């Protein structure tokens, strides 16, 4: 039992636990700790006077959560080839504070969620330099796995400072 625990601790230190998802043909990954829940896409209620990167909000068991379409965000065409597989990933950490009923959560719409992966840290490369800067620093690195690359994202960097404040304002106005 102790070995197992130790092993697992080692594993915990040396590996990164991700949840992988795909948008289009590309596979992305987000740290497991930042994910609250994964659900099937709910009906998005568009709100007036919301910043335009916000598609709208959903009501998830009473919580009002703003939704961002990652496809749009990554400026890919909005085609959904398998609507059955689309998911909403409810994330925390993108916003600060616990205003309103959202508790700082946002929802990301993705084409599909794959699995929970443990990727050894040694298999993770830092992000290429071209992907840095204001629009790119949410990519923390590239994970190498058997059948390709996983683009690792940082949820805290998904929204820029401006966007966060705008959302906070809107949230304030709401509450």
């Amino acid at each position, binding site marked *: 039992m102790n070995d197992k625990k130790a092993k697992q601790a080692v594993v915990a230190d040396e590996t990164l636990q991700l949840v992988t998802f795909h948008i289009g043909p590309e596979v992305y990954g987000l740290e497991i700790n930042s994910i609250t829940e*994964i659900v099937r896409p709910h009906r998005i209620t568009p709100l007036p006077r919301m910043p335009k990167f916000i598609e709208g909000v959903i009501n998830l068991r009473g919580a009002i959560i703003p939704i961002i379409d990652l496809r749009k965000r990554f400026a890919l065409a909005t085609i959904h080839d398998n609507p059955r597989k689309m998911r909403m990933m409810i994330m925390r950490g993108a916003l600060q504070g616990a205003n309103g009923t959202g508790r700082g959560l946002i929802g990301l719409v993705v084409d599909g969620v794959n699995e*929970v992966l443990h990727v050894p840290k040694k298999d993770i490369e830092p992000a290429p330099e071209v992907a840095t800067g204001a629009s790119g620093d949410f990519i923390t690195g590239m994970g190498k796995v058997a059948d390709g690359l996983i683009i690792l994202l940082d949820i805290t960097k998904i929204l820029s400072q401006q966007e966060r404040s705008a959302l906070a304002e809107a949230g304030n106005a709401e509450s």
Partner: protein
Amino acid sequence: MLDLKEKIEASMGLKLAVVITGVILALMVLGTAFVARTMSADQYRHIETHGKDLGMFLGKAVTDPILQKDMKKLESLVADAVKTQDMLYTYVTDSSDAVLNNVVTSFNRENPELHEFLLQNTSDSAPALAAKVKAQFDVLEIPVDIKTGETKLGTVWMGFSRTGAKQNVRGIVFLLLGTSVAIVLALAAMVYMMARKMIVVPTKEAVSVASNIAAGDLTQSVRIASHDEFGMLGRGLNRMITGLKGMIGNVQQAAMNVESVSTEVKGASARIATGSRTQAESVDEAASSVNEMHFALKEIAGTAQDLFATSTQTSSSVIETVASVDEVARTMHELSASIEETTSAIAQMSVAIRQIAGNVELLSAAAADTAASSSEISTSVKEVEETARQSLALSEAVASDAQQLGMHSIDKTIEGMGRIDAAARRTADVVNRLVGRVESIGSILTVIEDITDQTGLLALNAAILAAQAGEHGKGFSVVAAEIRDLSNRTAASTQEIGNLIASVQEESKVAAGVMQEGVAIVEEGMRLSKDAGQTLRKILERADQSRDMSRSINRAAAEQVRSIRQVSEAVERISGMTLQIAKAANEQKSASEQIARASEKMSEITRFVRTSTEGQAKAGKDITAAVENMSAKITLVNRATGEVQTGSNMIVKAIERIKQIAKENASQAAGLNSAVEIMADQAGSLKNEIQKFRM
């Protein structure tokens, strides 16, 4: 009186004198009257005042006597008082109007008239007598009260005569009047004298000179030396005389000129008059000769017109002749042409007739042949008849066979087909139901897939939570993994089922397709058998038809035999006829030859006629040309005469106008002459008049 009036009117001096006299006299009279009036009033007042004074004095004087009743004193006072100038009477009354003094003493006896009067009239009462005197004489009565302090004792009554005053006044008046008359007369005389001298004399002088001028004597001039208005008048008149002299001198000169000119003009106008007369006469002559010419021209024109008409007629008749000659020529042409045609036609006819003769022979030969062949036709026709009968029998047999056997089997086939069709349909229904079931399985499958999805999701979330829980979540992560496996297996099975269903669907679709095909084939079979039935029925119909046809063929064959017999009879007849035709054709041939010869002769004749008519035509054309030439010339002549005529017309008109003008001229000349005469007279009289003036 009238004489005087006239005299006054004729004389300025008298007028003035009279006027002045009158005016001043009037003024004087008025003045005198006024003075008289004023004076008399003045006199009366004087008398009154004097009287009053006297009265007062007397009153004072008699106061005491009255008071003392001293009548004597009173009487003496009154007697004294009454002797005053102009006093007629005086008496005193007391406060009760009783006369106190004696009537005798009351009156002034020193006045002769009064004295006279008093001798006639006496009275006891002074007032009564005084009243009488007042009535007789012009008296001014003055009462004056006698007063002592405030009490009135009585009244002094005084009567003054006004005649003295009157006389005074009268005297003055006369004096004034006399003076004024004298002044007036003196003034008048002076004015008269002055007027005469200063006005009348110069005026008379001017008047005499003016009359001289009127008479024509311009030698005298006005002699007025004064520098006043009359002097100016005189000088003006003199100036006038000088001016007149000058003017009249000019006028005299002019009159003389006018006279000489007028004589000349008279002469000239006389000449004009005679000239215009001669002009008029010559114009008349010209007019008459022009008229003669005009008439001559008209005649010429008329003749030319006639000539033109005649030439036109000639021309037209010539043209007609030519035309008719032409027509003859043409007709000849036509005739010759038609003769030619006839000739050729006749030739053709001969040819044709020969042909006919030939043909007729052929025809007879042919007729013989026909007769032979017609008998052959009869035999063949009989054969046809036989054949027709046979075919009829055959077709009847076919009909019955088809009827019996064919329809029966067809019906059976159709029945069988129907059964197959029904079976196929049932199978198809079954297959369809199968497909439906498969689809419902598919929908259930969707539900299962959904569940699988949700399960997967659940597993994922569980895994996430487990990971997040770290140590504590390990047990749960196992559970999550199991669930995940489960969902994966479910997913896999679902997939398999899905595949199976898909394949079953495919198969059933295929089966349905095949069923459809089978059904289609069965339908096809049914249709075919129906068609067979139809065809069979048609065959039956045809068999009937062919039976009918062969019957009719039979009949037709019989008829044909009959008609062929008729044909052979006809052919016989034709043979006979053709022989006749041959004979006739020969006869025609000889006749046509004769005609041909005759027509040849005709052609010759017509040729001859044609040449002669052509000659004629040519001659005719020449004539036409000549005639036309003449016509043209005549037209020219006509036109020329016309122009000449119009010209002569114009001349005549012009001549008329000239005549008119000449007449006017003559009258004008006469008028002029008379005017000139008048002018000459006027000039003469003017001269005479002017001559009157002496300068």
